[in-house]
């Protein structure tokens, strides 16, 4: 019924001290792009708990293999071959099935295929730099790619980004939508990066570091890194086990 009272149970409040603050002057671009007034809150309505659905059927066969999805037939991208895999979970630890995960990254030399990137490292003609997949029923996802390189960027006179892969995830509710970046275990550049250091809590930063997983490595093919993603949870998942629609 169009005007009946909907039963809406919202998502857990977002812990904004866990996320980087909008004004973080060490990352200079935030200075003129950060709102100054406090954000305003109200209980989640249907507008917040609903969100778009993307089906597995929209995926192309090579969408989650960045080593070949832009390469000429029979060729592949240059760089250390890796598998990145993990699960999308909510804060209750439940899998988030059938949700879109998109990634993008620089090539092995640290160069992006983008008009605005003028770094002197060369483009790889066989590497586009984007991929996507949809999680399975258990919330699992899987990509094959090459490990990206570190690169310098205009902030201080000598700031470098650690090797990283950008990711974008949806979840069933539009306010679960999340864009972030993950890093690689053991990279000393992580702790020097002004963008990483916009996150105040070291434990939160560690949550963005993918772990080398030799057991998932494909012998004589690709090393594996495991990276789990956690989206906001909601009370509606605490006491019920609905198949979809959480």
């Amino acid at each position, binding site marked *: 019924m169009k005007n009946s009272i909907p039963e809406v149970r919202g998502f857990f409040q977002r812990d904004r001290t866990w996320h980087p603050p909008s004004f973080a002057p060490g990352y200079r671009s935030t200075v003129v792009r950060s709102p100054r*007034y406090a954000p305003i*809150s109200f209980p989640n309505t249907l507008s917040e708990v609903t969100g778009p659905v993307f089906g597995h059927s929209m995926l192309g066969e090579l969408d989650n293999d960045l080593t070949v999805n832009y390469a000429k037939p029979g060729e592949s991208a240059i760089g250390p071959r890796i598998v990145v895999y993990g699960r999308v979970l909510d804060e209750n630890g439940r899998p988030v099935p059938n949700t879109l995960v998109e990634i993008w990254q620089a090539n092995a030399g640290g160069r992006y295929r983008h008009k*605005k990137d003028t770094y002197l490292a060369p483009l790889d003609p066989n590497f586009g730099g984007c991929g996507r997949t949809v999680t399975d029923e258990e919330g699992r996802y899987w990509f094959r790619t090459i490990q990206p390189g570190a690169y310098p960027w205009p902030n201080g006179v000598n700031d470098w980004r650690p090797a990283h892969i950008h990711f974008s995830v949806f979840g069933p509710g539009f306010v679960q939508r999340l864009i972030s970046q993950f890093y690689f275990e053991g990279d000393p550049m992580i702790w020097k990066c002004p963008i990483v250091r916009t996150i105040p809590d070291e434990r939160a930063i560690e949550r963005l570091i993918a772990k080398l997983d030799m057991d998932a490595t494909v012998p004589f093919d690709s090393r594996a890194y495991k990276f789990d993603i956690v989206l906001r949870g909601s009370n509606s998942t605490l006491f019920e086990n609905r198949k979809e629609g959480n």
Partner: protein
Amino acid sequence: MVQELFRLKETPSQTAGPYVHIGLTPNFLGIEGIYPSDLGSEMINENTKGERIDVKVRVFDGTGTPLRDVLVEIWQADANGIYNSPNDPRGNADPNFMGWGRKPADMETGEMVFRTIKPGRVPFNDGRLQAPHINFFIAARGINLALQTRMYFGDEEEANKQDPVLTRIEHQNRVPTLIAPREGNTYKFDIYLQGEKETIFFDL
């Protein structure tokens, strides 16, 4: 020791950065052949129900300069006020309208145009009707956690005056930052990240 709650923390956000287009709108950038088209670039087809409108969006930084590397997503109800989502218990959304769009700013002007339909009214949690609105998600270099806001419609004065969200805002003089004026079939929504005209952002 008390018992553990065993809850996980949300993955922390990081900026989408200046190269967000590679991942989310590669065809716009000229990276062709990976995806047939950019997701969310077309929101309606000829069978979509509802009044055709254009929503013209720009996002300005604190110096008044439009962001030319911003990416905006919108999420809205169909013409009857129903969301095309399994989380909308009312069901029966227009099958020709997904309700979601994604646009990168023009690299010269910073403008984005969403060709969509005017949404119907969606109930608030107490059953009152909300004024028609579109939900916004704004990501860019220099934005550490994507911003959430809403756009309301300038020609819905009566509904806006009674909207359960707009009426609870303490500083009523800031409410106009959420209301897009109409000109013909176009609504112009200018979003200000900072300054006197700073747009209301939400933490939902």
